[in-house]
């Protein structure tokens, strides 16, 4: 029972991170129908930026008391800004010129960008995992039989707040509506005065920012950053987005938490080396029975 609760807490924490990354995939897919393979690496980049800021501030000796809170905030914000800018730059340089190209061209480009980023991050940070500075206190709380770290609670809370905010932003705000309009019909959107390129660029900024949040949260939660983190995490996050129904914000969240739980329980019950097998088997099973994902709409074919 104790172990079960611990795995549950683990899975939820992991799921929150996957969900944050999945949101970025889903936003971009929703607007461009593109699997942004580089997104996982943007997440990795965010992790390293946060790590760099924390290391720098620790060396400056300011990470205590109020300085610690400000330092953590600075690391988070730096990760958000850096990832957002990187993602937007990728869109501008690698995807925008291909708006009218055959469908597979941007996908191959995305894979190419992903390879380049992974290699660049490796050159920058080396090929071994880099530990996150252990500066963030993590007092344990006992809630009934469940023992969780404050850090875990903060991670999940931060993720959920971000997701809810994003949901309302996309549903209610003027820009959010423009994003949905561009996603549905680019020409029609431009005819009502929406700047399509700008809207797509903003979508990439937001997706990148979410990857930045995830990068910070993931780094703190796993205790390290590694140049290839983004590949595995990105793959699972994209799987989460598809599982939930791609293009659907609530679906990405649901999918993220499910994949997180699945990973943590499969690791516990059948061993970590089987968790990929478990994750993808469940994905295949779900899609066989619900071809558009758990929350995705299956629109009747227009004939």
């Amino acid at each position: 029972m104790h172990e079960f609760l611990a795995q549950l807490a683990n899975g939820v924490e992991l799921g929150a991170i996957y969900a944050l990354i999945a949101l970025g995939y889903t936003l971009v897919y929703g607007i461009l129908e593109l699997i942004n393979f580089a997104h996982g690496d943007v997440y990795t980049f965010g992790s390293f930026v946060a790590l760099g800021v924390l290391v720098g501030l620790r060396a400056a000796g300011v990470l205590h008391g109020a300085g610690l809170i400000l330092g953590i905030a600075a690391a988070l914000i730096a990760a958000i800004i850096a990832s957002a800018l990187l993602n937007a730059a990728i869109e501008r340089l690698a995807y925008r010129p291909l708006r009218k190209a055959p469908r597979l061209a941007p996908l191959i480009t995305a894979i190419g960008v992903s390879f380049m980023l992974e290699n660049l991050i490796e050159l920058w940070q080396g090929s071994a995992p880099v530990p996150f500075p252990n500066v963030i206190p993590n007092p344990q709380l006992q809630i009934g039989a469940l023992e969780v770290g404050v850090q875990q609670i903060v991670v999940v809370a931060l993720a959920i707040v971000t997701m809810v905010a994003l949901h309302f932003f996309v549903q209610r705000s003027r820009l959010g509506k423009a994003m949905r309009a561009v996603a549905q019909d680019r020409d029609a959107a431009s005819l009502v005065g929406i700047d399509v390129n700008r809207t797509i660029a903003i979508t990439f900024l937001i997706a990148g920012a979410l990857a930045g949040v995830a990068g910070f949260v993931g780094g703190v939660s796993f205790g390290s950053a590694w140049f290839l983190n983004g590949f595995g995490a990105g793959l699972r996050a994209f799987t989460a987005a598809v599982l939930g129904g791609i293009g659907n914000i609530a679906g990405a969240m649901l999918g993220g938490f499910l994949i997180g739980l699945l990973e943590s329980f499969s690791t516990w019950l059948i061993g970590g080396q089987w968790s990929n097998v478990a994750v993808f088997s469940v994905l295949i099973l779900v899609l066989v029975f619900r071809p558009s994902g758990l929350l995705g709409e299956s629109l009747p074919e227009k004939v």
Partner: protein
Amino acid sequence: MIYTYAFVAIAACVAIERFHNRRAKATIVLLLAAFLAIAPRFYGNDAVFSVLADAAVYVMLALGLNIVVGFAGLLDLGYAAFFAIGAYTYGMLASPQFGLHLPFWALLFIAAALAALFGALLGAPTLRLHGDYLAIVTLGFGEIVPQIFQNLTKYTGGPNGIAALDVPTFFGHSFGASVMPYYYIALFGIAFALWISRNLRESRLGRAWMAIREDELAAKHAGIDVLRSKLAAFAIGASFSGIGGVLFAAKLALVSPDLFGFQVSVLIVSMLVLGGMGNIVGVVVGSLLLTIVNSALLPQINSLVDTAFHTTLDLSNLHFLIYGAILVGIMLFRPEGLLPSRERRAELHHAGEAAVDA
């Protein structure tokens, strides 16, 4: 030297694309075949033919995937899984692992059949999925298969894989340490794959694939059994990969799970896209180019830089950076591929004009 061969082969392919006269095309094909068969007697060394044999295996893989993606329009991002299945078939059945030493030639067929079977097993439940959903499921499959080979340590040697695979024999003559037999087998394999590809494209089944790729709903209304046709594409494509796997494993005398990861699937998809999806000749050019870049050009640049600047800078550290940049660069400058099929040219030409009356 390797570039001579690659250049001749690619030039011949381009010429075949340019000529419209059937007799001229046939002549070029014959000349090229004769050159590739005879030239090694006079020109080249083992290192060159080793790379060329690998290139030929990749050409076969790319032709197989072209049936799935180019003909039937099914994006498969886990094609390396079938490559792995083929390679492990050889690894497990022609090695000391179980003391089984089935002949190489029989295993070519067995691996083709097994890969086709797994293609059908994966396809049966998933081929109803559309577009990117299918892509992600196949990607998942591509991740699972090597992982399973890695985890079943008892049967597959785990992460270390299986070594000391049997050296094939030909009527009792061992291939020995020479790479030439593999080169010739792979050449023959390409010829076979080209013949099959062309047959399929012109067949009733090929027309059914075209219809499914263009408009699945309209295809159903023409009475086409969409699921069966897709399964056929998946199975045939997988069997090419299975055969390639046997060749690959026998030549390397080794299989291990890390040889069949996502990068390999991506590499093969890139070959298609680079060469020109759906166009058989384009696919050949794309796969030749990328293999040469990966196994000859990049290492050579590496050693050149080292000797020129007396550095220990290891450019192989930049392998993925350069490879990624090549992919991005080609897509940005020629998104339809180097030798696009007629269909792709038309598609690009009409991009974004769906609702136009001209």
